[in-house]
């Protein structure tokens, strides 16, 4: 009998990563849009959808965590162990993270949630709380709580949510909307804000990623091609570089002094969307990494 628990764990992790990243992206996109409010409705719908996904996915993750701890015997056994799992370190981290989800869902239903900058910042604060709990769960917790490694993991997750989420929502929701309705000037302004924030986030992603990789590889590059974790890291890195390449192209496009035309808007929209697709693959790879033994073991 083949158990699907390990596979389901990866998919549940990936779904959670994509949902909270997109949630952060929706909030950030609203900030970057400034006074332009034409995208409020799709952004709010994406906020609600992501919160709803988290509301379903986190209990599933908890049950799968329980299954993992008892040896993936059956759903019934997993359910029977949930109280004990709630007392473990990772169980507590999932529960704490889950506490933020109803708040985020409630927030996303509020009619004023995206109307004012202050209310968007409240949403971002809730998201940061969720990410902090997420950082307590996983390989970074191996050395204990409130360690430097967990701090770096928090920075890494926050930066990925900013970069990945920002691009994901911009590429799939905001840019197509703006391109069809908004003025060219608004699109350029949005693009510049996005590009500036993402550049900083990327720097943090790369630096914290190097630290995390170094820890995961046990301080040596040799496990990189010789371990499952190292190889998955290489795959993730290749997707990051592909996404980065598209980001650089967008950045150069925005810096050119030539008059902005409709065709350039179309090119930028395509590149941002392609970058968004690569970010989805990066997030799936991250979920795999979280479920593979690090190369230092």
């Amino acid at each position, binding site marked *: 009998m083949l158990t699907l628990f390990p596979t389901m764990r990866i998919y549940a992790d990936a779904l959670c990563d994509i949902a909270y990243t997109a949630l952060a992206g929706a909030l950030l996109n609203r900030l970057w849009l400034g006074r332009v409010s034409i995208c409020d409705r799709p952004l709010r719908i994406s906020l609600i959808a992501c919160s709803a996904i988290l509301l379903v996915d986190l209990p599933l993750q908890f049950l799968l965590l329980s299954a993992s701890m008892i040896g993936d015997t059956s759903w019934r056994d997993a359910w029977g162990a949930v109280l004990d799992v709630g007392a473990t370190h990772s169980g507590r981290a999932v529960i704490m993270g889950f506490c933020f989800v109803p708040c985020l869902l409630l927030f996303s239903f509020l009619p004023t949630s995206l109307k004012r900058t202050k209310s968007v910042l409240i949403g971002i604060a809730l998201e940061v709380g969720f990410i902090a709990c997420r950082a307590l769960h996983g390989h970074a917790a191996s050395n204990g709580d409130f360690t430097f490694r967990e701090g770096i993991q928090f920075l890494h997750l926050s930066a990925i949510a900013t970069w990945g989420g920002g691009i994901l929502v911009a590429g799939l929701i905001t840019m197509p909307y703006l391109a069809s309705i908004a003025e060219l000037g608004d699109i350029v302004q949005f693009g510049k804000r996005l590009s500036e924030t993402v550049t900083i986030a990327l720097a943090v992603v790369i630096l914290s990623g190097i630290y995390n990789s170094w820890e995961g590889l046990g301080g040596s590059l040799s496990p990189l091609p010789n371990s499952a974790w190292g190889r998955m890291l*290489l795959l993730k890195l290749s997707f990051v570089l592909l996404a980065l390449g598209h980001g650089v192209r967008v950045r150069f496009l925005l810096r050119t002094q030539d008059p902005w035309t409709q065709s350039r808007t179309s090119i930028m929209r395509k590149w941002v969307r392609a970058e968004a697709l690569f970010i989805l693959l990066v997030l799936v790879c991250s979920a*795999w990494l979280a479920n593979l*033994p690090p190369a230092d073991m």
Partner: protein
Amino acid sequence: MSEALTKSETAKARKKGWLPLLAGVRLSSFHGDVSEDAADPLFGATVTVPRLGWVLRGFYGRYYQAPPWASITGPLLSYANANNTGFTPLRGERDEEHEFGIQIPYRVWALEVDNFKTRINNFLDHSYIGESNVYIPITVDGALVRAWEASPRSPMVWRRGKFNLTHSNETAEQQSAITGGLICVQDCDDSFDCSPVDHDWRGTLNTGFTANLPMRTWFSSNVYNGSGFSNRTAGITDSNGALISPYQGDYLPAHTTFDVSARKRFGESLRLAVDVRSLAIDSTSERDAETSIKSSCKNNFMRSIHCNLGENMDQLKATFRSVVFIFSLMLTVVPSAFAHAHPKTMVPAPDSTGPAPSKISITFSEAVEPKFSSIKLTNIEGKPADPETSAPVPGDPATITLAAPSLPAGTYVVHWVDVSVDGHRLQGSYQFTVR
């Protein structure tokens, strides 16, 4: 080949009339230590049932397969002779293949069912020298391979992609004596009567989705579940009560693989394809670390990335392919276990012999969850040898101990389970002996 021919005919059946026929002869000539000639006919027909639209197809064909090896010489032959074996020239395999299939369309869907039967004379197989892992081809007098396959065909879904699902089942049986290749020299009992081939595939299930995405992007995913290579000689003993095969496990246990691939075209001259193959999904990986290690080949984690550049960039293409080839090699065959903390110090040590220990202690590579981590002690027969329960060491979250009463002399097995703080579980066992 026959399947491809008949299915291709099926697809063309409605366009080319109600009874397309296929016929031919394949001539083969082989010259080596033995000389063989073959004239193999093949015949196929496809019939479309009027009104119903059902398509029936049949195929009959013969096939000659030349021997893969001429001879063995030198140290290998000496080693074979030292193990009461020798090598006689191989003859080619001769197959007689029958196939019958039906395609039942329903609206935009279709169900395809096929049945295959192949009778083989001089069946090409392989055997090992002595108890080594040196495999040499042999031929067996006859074999019979039977299989069936069912496959619903999906239409285009949302004008974007197609689902695929295929289930197949195969059995292979062989009979009579070894007729060529690595043969026993004296006092041999190498005849057998219609026994299952020891490495036959049983059931396989293949499912996936292929999607044409916007922006000239293509994506496909595939999940494959195979029942593996069974070992039909496991547990079978000869007249002296000795196991006939030195290896008792399955050649390839049941396993599942997951492949994804994505392609994107940039302009006319640049294509990028990323194939992620056999991302390991394994039922046993978490349950038993030892099993996972032994069967690391099934837990493969092969991935490859292909970057194809356009026709006008051949040099760059070659460079990319070289890089990709090296990268693919790097990414080949990795055991995976969804687990984390592992034993670092074990007292008593694995495979050690000494006086009875007062306690058994394992220190893991990192902190473990005490409620889900344990040590159990059994004797070599698997009966519990210690009524005590294991407990964590205060102040040392990475260590678990089990108080051991005075253990009598004998061999004991320590079974350990650990769940690290990130929720990942690993388990295993080791032995020690009390003098």
